[in-house]
């Protein structure tokens, strides 16, 4: 813009005014947009801020009205109290066991199946793919009860197995996602490897897997978070308190007399933090993954 005004000195005045008008319009637009986005952001942040603020309140501060936003002094002792009030670390251990096992199972099974659907040219793979996507339409409520009965007959109810084993058999959503991703790799790569005499397993492990790391990372993150947050699964299958996950355990801050809100919020913060941190450090993977699920095959 500066060069323009240099080259056309007689029009300098006019173009300078024109530029600044555009600038004004742009800035106004920017300001208006921020004026809308900031209150919205505040509303979205509110639950967190409130969680944090309550977790630092001492008991008498909880039901004070108007509500205290910034507890002074912050009652840090709520945190150590919270993790000893219930068997927090035990529940944490249980949740981690389930989450890691399930994630590993999904990565293994879904990548194998997606490989079959995307990298091996066989008749019937399209039918299987359509069938796979169709199961996404099925509400979990339909399979819930018979599955429970199956596990009951196996004697698995009350333990971790019903929460882990199914994940070693694939899941439509991740198969779908990985299949889309696998299909972006040129077929020539596989064909060349086949001509070289590599077995399909070899191709899977050495050629394809290294290329799809971002997609695998997405699946891993999504599944881990899903297991971390899962409430219904543990609710149905875990009866022994020693096997509770964090989602179930957090209920114990409530008794029939009311809830220990400050402890409950402290525990909630602790439960939420890992997931939030994961997101912060792996934002790109997240957004990529969401975009992948939104793209129609």
């Amino acid at each position, binding site marked *: 813009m500066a060069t323009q005004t240099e080259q056309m000195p007689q029009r300098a005045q006019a173009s300078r005014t024109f530029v600044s008008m555009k600038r004004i319009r742009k800035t106004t637009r920017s300001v208006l947009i921020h004026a809308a986005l900031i209150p919205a952001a505040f509303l979205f942040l509110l639950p967190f801020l409130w969680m944090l603020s309550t977790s630092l309140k001492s008991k008498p501060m909880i039901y004070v009205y108007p509500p205290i936003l910034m507890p002074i002094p912050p009652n840090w002792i709520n945190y150590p109290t919270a993790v000893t009030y219930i068997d927090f670390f035990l529940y944490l251990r249980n949740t981690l066991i389930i989450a890691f096992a399930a994630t590993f199972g999904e990565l293994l099974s879904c990548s194998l199946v997606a490989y079959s659907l995307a990298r091996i040219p066989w008749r019937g793979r399209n039918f299987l793919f359509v069938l*796979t996507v169709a199961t996404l339409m099925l509400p979990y409520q339909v399979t819930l009860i018979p599955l429970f009965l199956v596990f009951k007959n196996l004697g698995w109810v009350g333990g971790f197995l019903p929460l882990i084993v199914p994940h070693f058999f694939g899941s439509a959503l991740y198969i779908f996602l990985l299949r889309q991703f696998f299909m972006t790799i040129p077929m020539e790569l596989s064909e060349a490897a086949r001509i070289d005499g590599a077995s399909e397993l070899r191709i899977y492990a050495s050629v394809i897997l290294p290329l799809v790391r971002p997609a695998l990372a997405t699946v891993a993150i999504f599944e881990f978070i899903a297991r971390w947050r899962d409430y219904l699964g543990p609710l149905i299958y875990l009866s022994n308190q020693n096997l509770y996950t964090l989602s179930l355990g957090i209920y114990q801050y409530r008794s029939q007399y009311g809830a220990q809100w400050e402890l409950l919020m402290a525990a909630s913060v602790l439960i*939420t933090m890992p997931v939030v941190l994961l997101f912060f450090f792996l934002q790109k993977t997240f957004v990529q993954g969401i975009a992948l699920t939104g793209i129609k095959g």
Partner: protein
Amino acid sequence: MASTTIDAPRRRFRIHQNTRHTINGLLFATPWLLGLLIFWIYPTLASAYYSFTKFNAVQPPVWIGFANYVQMLTQDQDTRDAIYNTLYFAIVSIPLAIFFAFSLALMLNAKIKGQVIYRTIYFLPTLVPEVALAMVWIYLFTPGSGLANLPFQWLGIYRLCWLTCPQMARPTLVLLALWIIGQQIILYLAGLQDVPQDLYDAADVDGAGFFRRLLHITVPILTPVIFFHLVTSIIWALQFFAIPYIMTGGTGFPANSTLFYSINLFRQGFQYFNMGYASALAWLLFVTTLVITGIVFRSSRLWVFYSGGEQ
């Protein structure tokens, strides 16, 4: 595929290759083939069967024909309330969610500073475990002392009962549903970024204003994303369970106003052990989901515009 050749040995190899591919294809898909059978096909058929029985999981199921279905549609007040609550929730929250997610994404898409920060903030609530979310909201919306009362008391409105009275409980839950639209915002953003700039430029040349551009370019191109959001939201809303369950301890307090369909189903199956009845409920849900989704799919021909095809 390998180029054509008339060599006999080559042809044998090619047939052999196809069979090999089929074997490998099936082999690699084995986990899912088993998974489909054990965790999807069998349970679906089994629950269909159970839905026609009276079954309490201890004694063998007793065939009763359509009695479950008749009961839940004509005699069971709980189920009728549950249907109403769930439909209300879906019908009210989904259009609002689409509107807000789309609007926020639009604003985020304008090249303003801090896009990443905003995006993160809007997405965060979707990460919070539902248990924590439910607890925070109970506390926020405590009648009298909850933070949510503050802005209303500035306006002189007192005694808001929020989640403790039937009239407000459902709208409050709708409000809560709007907190977790972060994922959809990101989806819309991704879609918005795919809109070819030349369309906007052409519109600018033609002198189109902001709203004109919005209605005639942006929205039509984004209809596939809106469609996806609509379908997934419907499915999600119809299955809404954890948050209202945690909030009310599975009771649908107050006065059944937060009794959602899945909570009713859960209660029937895992608290009253009416497994046959619960299976019937599940199938009604399934059929309803299919019908509604089918209608939306059909209607999509009228309003969804796939820009990929015309290039």
